[in-house]
């Protein structure tokens, strides 16, 4: 009921959501052009922009950037492996990024607390916004014991959080590359907007010398104002409003404080890379039966409105996709071509009612079932 309370208290969020739906529908109607415009804006700001068609291509681009990134420590400069800190990103899961980096020998740490716990347990997120929703305090304590012997199953939540903070702070200081997702990317300014509460994204985007953003092409919106609207709407419908932080990143850090001469870097990163992932999204934008699914702002509200997700949880879509619940059934189809979890949709319709973008998920899921049936 947190969302209902938020919407009652901040009714302008509903208006923003309605406007955002219209804006994003317009973008989806001409997705490639908006992506191109956003990429040009990023380049104009001194950043680097890429469009990866597939998961493998995206992972390779990011891995190459990490490999070539400037290192903070002398030892790493002479061929040592880079340290990477990651903010929670579903696209990073979609392309198998963390595991891919670790396999390549890099040190990679999730910095969102929920994702960090998922990493410690070698698990898979159970929800888009609350990845460790299924974990108890005792289980979290036992997991964190692995990095801090002072913490155990009897520790308080405050003690657990403090221990993780201490552990991750050392990683922020050592990190050569920070990798984030994006809540939205503005085509006009090439800005990346990220909303959060923990403060880890601030650290991930400022402490390392290289910031890499990996996100889906559907996150493009026309203007920075639209991008900020999306951050506001996403946090409200995720039940976390007002957000503690909204981060805007537009290229590498810079300063013009001396003789008005702009130089880069300043205090923040020296390099900024934006990797857009297609992975079925552009094809979906041209398919009238599923295109509306691209409006999803990944608030995860539909998960809780779905009786099947409430019964099956992570097991519904499984570990082949970070997307679960009603929206995930469709996203799993878009990004993996997998229609089978859709057949367990009971068409309760709660998802459509809960969705801030009013995506007609029951109808889309029925189409996904139909597409699956044709494969048999």
């Amino acid at each position, binding site marked *: *009921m947190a969302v*209902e309370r938020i919407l009652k208290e901040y009714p302008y969020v509903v208006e923003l959501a309605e406007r955002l739906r219209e804006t994003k529908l317009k973008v989806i109607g001409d997705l490639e052009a908006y992506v191109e415009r956003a990429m040009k804006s990023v380049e104009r700001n001194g950043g680097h922009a890429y469009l990866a068609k597939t998961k493998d291509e995206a992972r390779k681009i990011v891995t190459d950037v990490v490999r070539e990134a400037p290192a903070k420590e002398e030892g790493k400069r002479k061929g040592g492996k880079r340290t990477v800190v990651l903010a929670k990103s579903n696209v990073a899961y979609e392309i198998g990024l963390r595991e891919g980096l670790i396999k390549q020998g890099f040190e990679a740490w999730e910095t969102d607390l929920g994702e960090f716990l998922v990493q410690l347990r070698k698990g898979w997120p159970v929800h888009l916004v609350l990845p460790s929703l299924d974990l108890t305090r005792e289980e979290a304590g036992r997991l964190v014991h692995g990095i801090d012997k002072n913490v155990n199953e009897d520790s308080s939540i405050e003690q657990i959080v403090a221990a993780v903070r201490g552990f991750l702070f050392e990683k922020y200081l050592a990190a050569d590359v920070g990798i984030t997702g994006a809540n939205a990317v503005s085509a006009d300014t090439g800005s990346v907007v990220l909303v959060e509460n923990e403060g880890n994204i601030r650290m991930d985007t400022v402490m390392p010398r290289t910031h890499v953003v990996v996100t889906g092409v559907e996150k493009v919106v026309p203007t920075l104002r639209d991008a900020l609207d999306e951050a506001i709407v996403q946090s409200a419908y995720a039940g976390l409003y007002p957000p503690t932080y909204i981060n805007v990143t537009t290229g590498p850090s810079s300063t013009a404080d001396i003789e008005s001469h702009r130089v880069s870097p300043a205090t923040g990163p020296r390099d900024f890379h934006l990797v857009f992932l297609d992975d079925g999204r552009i094809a979906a934008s041209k398919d009238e039966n599923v295109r509306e699914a691209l409006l999803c702002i990944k608030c995860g509200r539909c998960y809780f*409105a779905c*009786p*099947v997700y*409430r*019964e*099956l949880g992570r*097991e*519904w*879509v*499984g570990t082949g996709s970070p997307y679960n619940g009603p929206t995930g059934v469709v996203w799993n189809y878009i990004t993996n071509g997998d229609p*089978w*979890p*859709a*057949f*367990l949709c*009971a*068409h*309760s*319709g*709660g998802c*459509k*009612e*809960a969705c801030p973008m009013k995506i007609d998920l*029951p109808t889309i*899921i*029925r*189409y*996904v*079932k*139909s597409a*699956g*049936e*044709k494969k*048999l």
Partner: protein
Amino acid sequence: MDEDKIKDRVRLIRSLVTRNLMRDYVPFPMDRKLASSWALPLDVPRGGDTLIYTSYMYQMSSVFKSYGRLLPKIGSLASSSLVQGLGARVIKPSDEEMKRASSILSNAYSLIRASGVEAGYLYEEEPYSGALLLEMGFLDELKDYGKKLLSFFRDRGTKRLIVLDPHTLFTLTYLKREVGFDVPFQHYVDVVRGAKGEGNFVLHDSCVFSRLLDRYSSLRDFIRQTGISLSEDELVTGRATGSCCGGPLASLDYELSEDMAKQRAEELKRVNPRVLVMCPICLSQLSPYADVRDLLEVIRRERKLEVGHSQGGRLKRDGGGEDPEGIPVRRRAG
């Protein structure tokens, strides 16, 4: 999720249901005489311009559920003639279930008549709507069957269908859009006038009726007008938060379907031990786990309306539009 199991079931159900529907107008082997026997004591006219359309939903929802449970046991044999012939004799509703269904359908007929509408019935000739095809996403198959269904009613000169359950209503709404199903249809709550009921219940919304067909508010208006009061809890009966009985999944994953039914029944009982439904699938699913009544079990006609005095009107959809057909209740010639 067991992908192979899903594929096997989908393949099996498609083959079984499509074959039966295209040949016999019913999805599974069933005793159609038994299913239509409710109308005999009432001497419901056979055929006619206006038909009460049960689509076998109240009579056979337990049978559909049984097929869901038995499919994994009979497997691919389900589509064989031998098993199909056996099915109609072995898989049938219990006497108690048939008695309950007969009572519900009889009351529906009485309520409709008392509202000034003369409705006939096709008895064992009645075709199934194809709702299961829609639930399963067999959209091409449904379109094919929908055309056949339309011809069936056109051939009989049907001018109007009065539908008793949400799934049939939803299917006909889909067919109207997709294949031009132009036989007018209405749900009984848009036809029945002056019904009376009493008692306090928690309403378990039909997902199809209240959310997918946008009737959440107008259904409550109808129920409250009868004199029944409803207990509400935003977390249990809210438009976005109300949950499913699990029925649509019975043929794919029987255990999941039952788990959902149990869970839903527990939620509802926390609000009120007396649960009200308006869908035969919800009734069948939730009845083992709670004290459940169908709306057609708790409303009665207040008085028989005189011919020509029906208050034929139009219930608004929640979205502000008219009912799917926008049909006023036809008045009997006075």
